[in-house]
């Protein structure tokens, strides 16, 4: 537990010193979302129809964009070797690093989503569901992306491969997240997809770090 807090604080400190890297995926999210009305007609009905799905795809891509440095910086400077040899379980350390990553990339994304949703004419009643769905979905995305980063840790410039590995796995999150938001837009009950998102998050958080730790050990060999 001590190691968890220690690594979490260390990673947050490093993240805030590299704030430019933090801001890039978020700006990417905002810019891509603002381009949609330019690409298609800015009509209210069209934007509302496409907005939900588009918002989710943009969120997904930007959360992947943030992932490149999760393990690769530590691998390059040798910290990862030391962490792997430390008495604390590597999976706990991985969980701390993933949580730190989620706090600096997932949480700002959740904060940015409602204003962007309003710009797509999504009704205000749908916003709580959108935020709730993102709260449940982004941890799963962070774990999946961490898994991709762990698998590619020994590759130089593995950024694009992470996307190829992870994006297909994010399909369920995308389906249930966009579905929940869409149901909310039409004023229908949304609990079903939200429960499924929660189940995915529990699965990812409980098993993901173990898989990441195993992948990192192989990568270090």
């Amino acid at each position, binding site marked *: 537990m*001590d190691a968890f807090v220690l690594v979490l604080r260390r990673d947050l400190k490093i993240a805030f010193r590299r704030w430019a890297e933090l801001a890039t995926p978020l700006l990417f999210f905002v810019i891509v979302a603002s381009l949609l009305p330019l690409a298609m007609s800015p009509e209210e009905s069209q934007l509302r129809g496409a907005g939900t799905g588009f918002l989710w795809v943009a969120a997904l891509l930007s959360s992947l964009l943030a992932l490149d440095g999760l393990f690769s910086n530590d691998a390059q400077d040798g910290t990862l070797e030391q962490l792997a040899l430390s008495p604390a379980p590597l999976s706990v350390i991985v969980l701390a690093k993933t949580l730190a990553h989620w706090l600096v990339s997932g949480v700002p994304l959740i904060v940015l989503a409602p204003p962007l949703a309003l710009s797509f004419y999504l009704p205000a009643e749908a916003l709580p569901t959108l935020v709730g769905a993102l709260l449940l979905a982004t941890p799963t995305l962070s774990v999946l992306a961490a898994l991709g980063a762990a698998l590619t840790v020994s590759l130089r410039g593995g950024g694009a491969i992470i996307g190829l590995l992870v994006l297909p796995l994010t399909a369920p999150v995308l389906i249930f997240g966009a579905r929940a938001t869409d149901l909310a837009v039409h004023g229908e009950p949304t609990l079903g997809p939200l429960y499924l998102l929660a189940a995915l998050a529990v699965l990812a958080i409980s098993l993901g770090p173990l898989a990441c730790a195993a992948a990192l050990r192989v990568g*270090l*060999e």
Partner: protein
Amino acid sequence: MTQDPSTGLIVSSLEVWRGERRLFGDLSFELHSGQVALITGPNGAGKTTLLRMLAGLSVPFGGDVTWDGTPVQRLAAEPRAAIAYQGHLDGLAKNLTVAENLAFYRALWAGEGAVEPLLDELGLTEFADREVRYLSAGQCRRAGLGCLRLRRASLWLLDEPLTNLDAAGVDVVTGWLQEHTANGGAAVVATHQADRLDGAVAVAVEVEL
């Protein structure tokens, strides 16, 4: 002094391949409390690979590495903490200051010893609050090796510890090695600069790859 034969680091019939090439096939040696093993050999002979195996980072292709009777791959948390590995990467986060890096490792290993006097000994006091990315390679090496002093490890595995160090830095590190072995610690040192250790450190085991 007689040693319990099962304690310490025991390497038996170690076999290592890199790709299609066999680096060595039947390496055996023992290292006990207070001893230093020196690993020498040309570039590409497998010094780093061997040290990573001793640390438990890599799996041997054949043979065993045991520490106090347990294979290094399956050590529990406590005996694992007794083995300190310093590879050719220093393990310092570039965006943290020297003091923050050292404090992190001290806490991670639940180690002892204060950071300030160590920085003083390393000649890094005025750089303590500077981010590591602004340091020279030699200063990084000093700080990386400094981590050894913040924990109670009884076995040091050092990969080219003298690289990038100036004469004063070499003196500090050899001084630490002497003190470490005098206190009953053991060390495996892989180096090209064996002559710089000669005289300063009594070598009990020599392994030439």
